[in-house]
């Protein structure tokens, strides 16, 4: 078996090989573009690919290396950006028809930082419309598919990003996570996904779904890759008033220090007390917890008693914020505008533009959020949800008195069949029960693959950290990864197989 191309390995290995001159950035980028060309028609992971610009960026890295210039930490690494994040010169769709024809004038802060670090930007990945969904099926451009089984969903909303990284259509990806949108697709596609602490990463240039919950984060093959990528994109940004002022510590420095003495909290509500948890998922998670214990960690039972309220709380707060965040898509200044008909007033323009431009799930959430904030209902719904959010936050605060990280399944189930829950949105919402609380409490959390389900589909372990303690979280994740190993999906059937059998 010949060596894999660097792009099929980790981001860190790829960056190292390019920096050492073992392979050119152009070769790596071309390989990634070739795989996209071959597999994307089936996987539908990318909504936009700009080969020419990507190759240009790659060649610039190669020239810089030859000229002896100092290379950035991601020099020459081909990465993708979720199509909720602005990249100058590339269309921005947010997975919606309503942004038709819109190209942003500026890079998001995270993209600017990717460029400065030398990354090659391949294109924009598929997502649920405005990041509203857990299966990628609400995308206006059709769902991305899971490389482990293309009849299955990749998860969502960052489904295209997860599918791309898992299938090697790029080495790493930026996703966004409002209620699990990085961690759940990472789990369902067998990769690593990190949702940073709220305020760790700038949201400037990121299309807002629910502003108090949204965070950008890395989706990668390895935990070290996630650390490297967060190191690049994270840290203060004066352009985002909610971005924390604290500088990031060196996230890779202590990755290999192990977990001896680490107190790992195991929330009752995520395992024994969880409804609808697939026993096979449970057994992979248990095995990973045992392995952590075997490495010297202490397992501590904890309770998060308000977990049962997270779903309702999340869907009130997130939709309330979304109802305002999505008001700007009105057909007046940018994006899609309906055909004017004789006698149309401004309200007709709004109603038809939005009626035609938004999909069902987005409309459902705008309606929910508008209702939650309406006169006479605001106290009972939105205000109460804000008070419960505080209780959920306090549950975690109590847990930190006895533990350093928390662990449990990322998703109660493995990747489900495309179309399985499209008619039952509530059942789909329930899939996110383990990930939502983290966003409500603003905590960092990581999903790490812990092996395969008997169905041959990946299972993810979710680790939750203290606010702004991504370093400990990543150290624990690296230990889990060392035991469970990374996962490699089967080659997508109709892809041109470049590897010898």
């Amino acid at each position, binding site marked *: 078996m010949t060596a894999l191309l660097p792009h099929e390995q980790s981001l860190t290995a790829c960056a190292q090989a390019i920096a050492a001159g073992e392979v050119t950035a152009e070769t790596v980028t071309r390989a990634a573009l070739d795989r996209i060309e071959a597999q994307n028609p089936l996987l539908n992971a990318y909504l936009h690919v700009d080969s020419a610009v990507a190759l240009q960026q790659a060649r610039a890295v190669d020239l810089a290396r030859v000229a002896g210039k100092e290379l950035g930490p991601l020099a020459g690494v081909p990465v993708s950006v979720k199509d909720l*994040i*602005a990249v100058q010169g590339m269309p*921005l769709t*947010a997975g919606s028809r309503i*942004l038709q024809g*819109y190209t*942003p*004038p*500026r890079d*998001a802060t995270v993209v600017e930082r990717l460029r400065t670090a030398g990354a090659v930007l391949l294109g924009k990945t598929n997502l649920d419309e405005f990041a509203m969904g857990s299966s990628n099926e609400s995308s206006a451009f059709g769902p991305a598919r899971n490389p482990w089984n293309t009849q299955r969903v990749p998860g969502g909303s960052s489904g295209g990003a997860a599918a791309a990284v898992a299938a090697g259509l790029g080495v790493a990806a930026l996703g966004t996570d409002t209620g699990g949108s990085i961690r759940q697709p990472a789990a369902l596609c067998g990769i690593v996904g990190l949702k940073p602490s709220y305020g760790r990463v700038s*949201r*400037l*240039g*990121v*299309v*807002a779904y*629910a*502003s*108090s919950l949204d965070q950008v984060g890395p989706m990668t093959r390895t935990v070290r890759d996630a650390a490297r990528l967060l190191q690049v994109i994270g840290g203060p940004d*004066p*352009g*985002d*008033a*909610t971005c924390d002022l604290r500088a990031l510590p060196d996230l890779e420095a202590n990755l290999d220090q192990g977990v001896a003495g680490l107190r790992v909290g195991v929330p009752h509500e995520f395992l024994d007390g969880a409804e609808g948890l697939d026993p096979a998922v449970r057994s992979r998670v248990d095995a990973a917890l045992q392995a952590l214990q075997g490495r010297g960690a202490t397992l501590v039972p904890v309770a998060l008693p308000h977990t049962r309220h997270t779903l309702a709380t999340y869907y009130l707060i997130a939709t*309330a*914020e979304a*109802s*305002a965040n*999505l*008001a*700007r898509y*009105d057909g*007046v*200044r*940018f994006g899609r505008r309906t055909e004017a008909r004789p006698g149309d007033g*401004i*309200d007709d323009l*709004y109603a038809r533009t939005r009626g035609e431009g938004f999909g069902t799930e987005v409309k459902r959430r705008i309606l929910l959020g*508008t209702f939650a*904030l*309406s*006169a006479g209902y*605001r106290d009972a719904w*939105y205000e109460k949800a804000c008070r419960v959010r505080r209780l959920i936050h306090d549950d975690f605060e109590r847990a930190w008195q006895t533990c350093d990280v928390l662990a449990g399944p990322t998703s109660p189930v493995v990747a489900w069949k495309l179309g399985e829950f499209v008619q039952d949105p509530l059942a789909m919402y329930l899939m996110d029960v383990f990930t939502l609380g983290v966003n409500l409490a603003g905590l960092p959390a990581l999903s790490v693959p812990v092996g395969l389900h008997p169905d041959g589909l990946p299972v993810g372990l979710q680790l939750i950290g203290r606010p702004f303690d991504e370093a400990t979280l990543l150290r624990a994740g690296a230990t889990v990864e060392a035991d469970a190993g990374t996962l490699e999906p089967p080659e997508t059937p109709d892809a041109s197989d470049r590897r010898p059998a």
Partner: protein
Amino acid sequence: MSASEAARWQAVIGLEVHAQLRTSTKIFCSCPTSFGAAPNTHVCPVCLGLPGALPVLNRAAVQLAVRTGLAVGCTIAPRSVFARKNYFYPDLPKGYQISQAELPVCLDGHLDLELPGATTDSPTLQRHARIQRIHLEEDAGKSIHGEGGAQTSAIDLNRAGTPLIEIVGHPDLRSADEAVAYLKELRAILLCLGVCDGNMEEGSLRCDANVSVHRPGEPLGTRCEIKNVNSFKSLRDAIAYEIDRQVGLLNDGQRVVQQTRLWSQERGRTEAMRSKEEAHDYRYFPDPDLPALVIDPGEVEILRLGLPELPAARRARLRAEQGVTAQAAAWLVEEPERLRAFQAGVQGGAGEPAAWATFLMTQAIAALTRSSRAFAEVTTAARELARICDKWRTGGLSNRMLNDVLTQGFAGEEPLFAALQTALTGVGEVVSDTAALEATVDQVLAGLGPQVEKYRSGQVQLFGFFVGQVMRVLDGKGDAQAVNAILRRRLG
């Protein structure tokens, strides 16, 4: 309606005043705030509401809001919260306005109004008008409908994101005059603080009036909110109209419907715009893009120490220390430039500040109004104007000569101060030589035998006629006091 019927009703009025803050950049981005630029040239992703744009608060706007709050006796909230006010309108790019709702930056202030008394110089009536709150918010853009006969509307977003404060008054005012006095006082404070340029025509200062009527002792009536009031005159007219309208309805046995009404200056009436049922549900909630606004008490104290002398104190000092009349003091303090012109005249040697103030308010402004000059020239020519005032006051210029000097000076092409000097030289000297005046008087009286007879037989009101005749012969340049004295002697 008879006067006695009208008297049974008491009007209750509260004003909501929006003031654009004089920051150099907008409240949530770094675009300039200047007025009059080409449409949509002072815009960026934040003021256009582009996807992914985020607001960052301009602390200079906060300071101006706090200064205003301190000047009207408000408590400054150590922590206040920005909220989204949701509604769709084409000139509101985000579909919501960032404002403050439950937790505004300033709370509980007041204005003590001095209302014109029975005579011009007795400001004895007082009204303690409470201010409920002052909050910070962003302005919207402007819609321009069907310009040049076009079927389309255009949007200019230059104004979008301009910082505003909204000053919400309690319904403590009882008449249109009180409402005007309230707005004038507030405007004078904003100008004195340098917080707002106070230009109501350009919309830098805007006012909505809530008006209801009730019988004293009974619960308050149903109120209407009147919008589109953009001058003191329209405020007075709109409120007076609205009070009449509501009293008329009630006297006819009808009821007042709660609604928003637009004032039409052309038609001289308020017109229904939307009813309570059609009112927006703004669905306020805290803006998750902006952390709570925390203001350090130390910063508040520094701003308090930096407050200038406020209009009420300034007026009191003008009256007490310089003897300026209440009316002139009020006039001077209304606009900082008037006060500057007054002070320039005093520094330039005005002999009697009180007389100079009145001269500035009446003669100088009358001449300015007839001319095409700007007020700024009055300030630069204050020394010359004060000198002319003194000369006139001490008899060195007759009324006629004063009028000639001012008219010629203000009409001239040169800078005002030079034109006034030229006119003053050209007008010559007053005729005060006693012998010459006596000769003129005798000559005039000799030709007016019958009138002199009538005067001496008791028609003393003819005295002014004799003065006029003498002055006519003297080409208006006679020393009025001397002429009077000689006439009295000759006729006596």
